[in-house]
């Protein structure tokens, strides 16, 4: 089963959403999948409270601030 990912603009499986953020699920996973099965219950079982907080209760950044952070991180890498 696949649903359309509003971030990617393409079809994805639940497995993809579950590891979209590397070790954590996509922060949209509950919203996207709650129509299909009790996803929140499943995710709560799977994550520790700390992981849950990291995944779902983090203060999101504005895009420009995300860019600034990525720029700062990339500056420390060698220039071609």
């Amino acid at each position, binding site marked *: *089963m*696949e*649903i*359309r*990912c*509003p*971030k*990617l*603009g*393409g*079809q*994805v*499986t*639940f*497995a*993809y959403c579950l*590891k979209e*953020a*590397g*070790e*954590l699920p*996509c*922060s*949209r996973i509950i*919203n*996207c999948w*709650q*129509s*299909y*099965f009790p996803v*929140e219950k*499943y995710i709560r079982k*799977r*994550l*520790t409270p700390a*992981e*849950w907080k990291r995944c*779902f*209760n983090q*203060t*999101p*950044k*504005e*895009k*420009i*601030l*995300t*860019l*600034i*952070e*990525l*720029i*700062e*991180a*990339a*500056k420390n*890498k*060698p*220039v*071609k």
Partner: protein
Amino acid sequence: MVFFNWKGENNMKQTKVFLNESEMPRQWYNIVADLPTPMSPPLHPGTGQPVGPDDLAPVFPMNLIEQEVSTERWIDIPEPVLDKLCLWRPSPLYRARNFEKLLDAPVKIYYKNEGVSPPGSHKPNTAVAQAYYNKVFGIKRLSTETGAGQWGSALSMACQMFGLECRVFMVKISYEQKPYRRLMMMTWGADCIPSPSNLTQAGRKILDEYPDSPGSLGMAISEAIEDAVGDKDARYSLGSVLNHVLLHQTIIGLEAQKQLEKIGDYPDIVMGCAGGGSNFAGLCLPFVRDKIHGKQISIVAVEPTSCPTMTRGPFAYDFGDTAMTTPLLPMHTLGHGFVPAPIHAGGLRYHGMAPILSHLLKEQIIEARALDQIETFTAGINWARTEGFIPAPETNHAIAAVVQEAQKAKEEGKEKTILFNWSGHGLVDLAAYDAFLSGKLKTYDLPEEELQKALKSIEGFPKP
């Protein structure tokens, strides 16, 4: 003026309104000049000071940074940009007479057809401008990320037009599933890389940990930024959210205003789908200006219920507005127990949404609505069966909202004129239509058996 209708007959029912190339707007409109209240500048996470031009210089050329922070109301569109835009612009304004007939409501429906661009969406309106400004700044290569490829294909074409190299980090799962957009990028000469890749430290780190990682948009952005920062001849390009991107898209609404003026009409409602917000903003910002100056008009952004950045703003709260002069609002929840109760409305930010639109929403100049995918695909199918054009799945959100407005007008017995942005065609997204037509998108409670099957499919993935 030439009159056409669906059957191509010359009669008095006008379906399209054209502008000559000479009538194309020569300036973009900058809403920042007309905002009733100023926007708070974003603060640098390291210094706590407002983000300045130097902070952005590693990834954007200074001419675009100047646009990003500009408060000038009108900004000239350079001639070389106009020359390229003329390949498909001015885009036609259509009257959706067949869809109106289907709805049988007292509404006139107009739409800007942005699907006529070579990549099939509104995205090249800013891609062309960004490529040009980078070129004149002396940049040789642009780097970007793309999900399913809509932005990547637009930038690939634009770079080719101005003789720039283009590198697109495409989320691996889409790279493998979406060969057509990948091939469009390659046809336009871009280097399309599945992300995570071995080209960057960010990509290599992920691949070391998860060799089969399907990638994500966040990961692809990290790679594109690193790629741009690490090459003095390269810069990064973003297809939505930022002020200068929205600025470039205002040509859509400016054209629409001229076209409506030609036929002596004006909308009661302006609508568009909103992900990052660029296509919605492109159509609506010139009308927001009218509204600020007294026009009675509703301006509605439509988003998916599965990604409700504006209608719910889940997890999207910060306290950037330190004055805290506005009342607290209750936070909408996505499920009990995992969302903090109060947020400060004055500092509310909608993650992933353009700050300008967040600001207009906060000021109640625009409104937002969320629709589910079943409703939107139903509207899109009805659209295709009446108007012919197959919309992009995102565009279906705007169409579904138009349907709602038409039904409302019918119930109230009021005549309404609706304008919306038909932001792109869906010819490269037919897999999504396949899923809908075969019933796979149906909203239902997943049977236990299928749930177990779905969960079984993820066994073996690393547990956090």
